[in-house]
């Protein structure tokens, strides 16, 4: 057993877990507020990274302008999606909204291939390229800085939604829609807010993921791992998303290093099934009490 190697792999796993956690946060935000399982989260991430690609590489905007522009444009996309696809389904069974997002994923992939073609592209480098050494272990600089940015964003989002009025409204809507309505919270607007915020977060993580591994129209596969993360953590739990993000990142890295690349998804899905059998609502999810 090579302990240094294990340590190195684990670090990489935890760092990529940070990215999962950020994307999972985007997912949980929509789920908590609107009870929509957004299976197209990977595709929204991809849309964000392609917008960044357009602004930074094709229009050659400076980075400090391109990143906010991409994030804002994604927010707009989120608002459009909410208005045209999710709002009309208010009150329909949750399965309908879930399937709408299945369709949404397909539309986004198709649009990206139409506009930017299906080829693999590289995002402009903006992260420091000096290798990072933690003790004896070497960590790829992009992965390290990606994880740092993700961690900063997660912290910022948590703070903002704890103290800002909109965040309070969102949490109120999440815990009880009827009660939120009755104290004057504009619930449909909160729904929009949740989608906009989620699309923006997805764009941020899309930019990071894209600058680590390049962008292509099949980037949505990242969304599958994110889906595993949120299910393992519990759909409506922020803490669950963070813990499960790191856990799944770790499992993927270890399986990839010791068993081989093709075992990555297999290992995470086996973890998923095992955890669901033991805890049907994920590690930290709310247990729904059903009665007639």
């Amino acid at each position, binding site marked *: 057993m090579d302990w240094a190697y294990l340590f190195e792999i684990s670090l990489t796993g935890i760092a990529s877990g940070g990215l999962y956690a950020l994307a999972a946060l985007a997912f949980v935000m929509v789920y908590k507020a609107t009870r929509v*399982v957004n299976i197209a989260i990977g595709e929204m991430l991809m849309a964000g990274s392609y917008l960044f690609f357009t602004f930074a590489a094709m229009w050659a905007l400076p980075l400090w302008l391109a990143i906010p522009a991409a994030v804002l444009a994604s927010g707009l996309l989120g608002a459009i999606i909410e208005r045209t*696809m999710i709002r*009309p*389904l208010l009150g*329909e069974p*949750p*399965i*309908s909204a*879930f*399937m*709408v997002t*299945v*369709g*949404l*994923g*397909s*539309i*986004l*992939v*198709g*649009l*990206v*291939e*139409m506009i930017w073609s*299906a080829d693999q592209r590289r995002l402009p480098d903006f992260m420091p390229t000096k290798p990072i050494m933690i003790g004896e272990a070497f960590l790829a600089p992009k992965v390290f800085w990606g994880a740092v940015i993700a961690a900063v964003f997660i912290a910022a989002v948590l703070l903002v939604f704890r103290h800002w009025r909109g965040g309070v409204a969102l949490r109120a809507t999440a815990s009880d829609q009827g009660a939120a309505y009755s104290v004057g919270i504009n619930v449909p607007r909160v729904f929009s807010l949740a989608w906009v915020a989620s699309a923006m977060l997805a764009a941020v993580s899309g930019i990071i993921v894209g600058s680590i591994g390049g962008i292509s129209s099949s980037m949505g596969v990242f969304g*599958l791992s994110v*889906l*595993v993360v949120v*299910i393992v953590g519990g*759909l409506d739990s922020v803490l669950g998303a963070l813990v499960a993000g790191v856990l799944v990142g770790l499992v993927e890295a270890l399986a990839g290093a010791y068993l081989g690349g*093709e*075992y990555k*998804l*297999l290992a995470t*899905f*086996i973890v*998923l*099934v095992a955890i*669901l*059998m033991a805890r*049907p*609502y*994920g590690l930290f999810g709310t247990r729904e009490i*059903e*009665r*007639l």
Partner: protein
Amino acid sequence: MRIGTFKESYASDAALFDSRTQHVWLGIAAALLLAFPFVASDYWLYLACLIAINVASSTGLNILTGYTGLVSLGQAAFMGLGAYTVAILQARWGTPLLFNLLAGGFVAMLGGMVVGIPSLRVKGLYLAIVTIAASFIAHFFFANLKITGGTAGLSMQPGQVLGVVLDTSFRLYWLIVPITVLMLLGAANLFRTRIGRAFIAIRDRDISAEVLGIPLLQYKLLSFGLSSFYAGVAGGLWAYFFRVVTPESFPLSMSIFFLAAIIVGGMGSILGGVLGAVFMTLVPEVLKLIVDVLPGSADLTVFLSPVRLVIFGALIVGFLVFEPLGLAEMWRRTRRFFHLWPFRN
């Protein structure tokens, strides 16, 4: 011409096909199905077989998702189980075709029941994700086991029935379409029985169903099993049709295709599954025809596959937003219009 309905006995109320007009139309449809292979070109025969396979599989998914309310994104994986079983049996031992198809169905059924085990504890969308997990695990085994031929997959000889070698679309049509029709009749009849009604009760509210004395796990497993059986047989037919089975033959997007087919067609309706599968299979072909007719088609062909994806997604979204009950509901409206015609429209 017939106005309204007037039923005099329980038997006529519970009948599978309820009116004279319907019998006549069904007779015409059957005659068309019989005559079709003698007039159609090879391309249309190929399409007809593909449609029939998709109809069989989406009918299976409709039993599980439309009637029992358990969303599954693993239908393609169960088709894969059936296809691999058939391919292995045919290529290694050359067992008779109908036996292979049945075996494929039963293997897929077992697989489906294993995947269904979490369904008592895990509900709704959690379950949908478990079925995604199942399809990835199945894909992994297809790609890595020795008996499935790894990533290269398996290729097989054309099947034989009563000494006739099924190597053209014309001959395969006579295998695939009758089996699909049989399975459709089976599914339609299922919902006139105690089992089918239990499925519907579970869909409407599973706890009430349990209070009414329906053993939930048993019936949910049965629903998974039946649906996978349909998928397995469809997969077996698929294997005989294409004669090459690889791990990439049954991707997650295929499961999504079947889900889309029953959404577009109408969930919880046998006719809906059929209409949806026909419609969804034909959409890409119609697109291809349009692109061929339009000027400058060489440039447009590049756009064909992304346009297909966009239209595919837009169909799902559009139907859910504007016509949640799908094509079947449109059909019912048309039918009602003719029932009531001179009096109300």
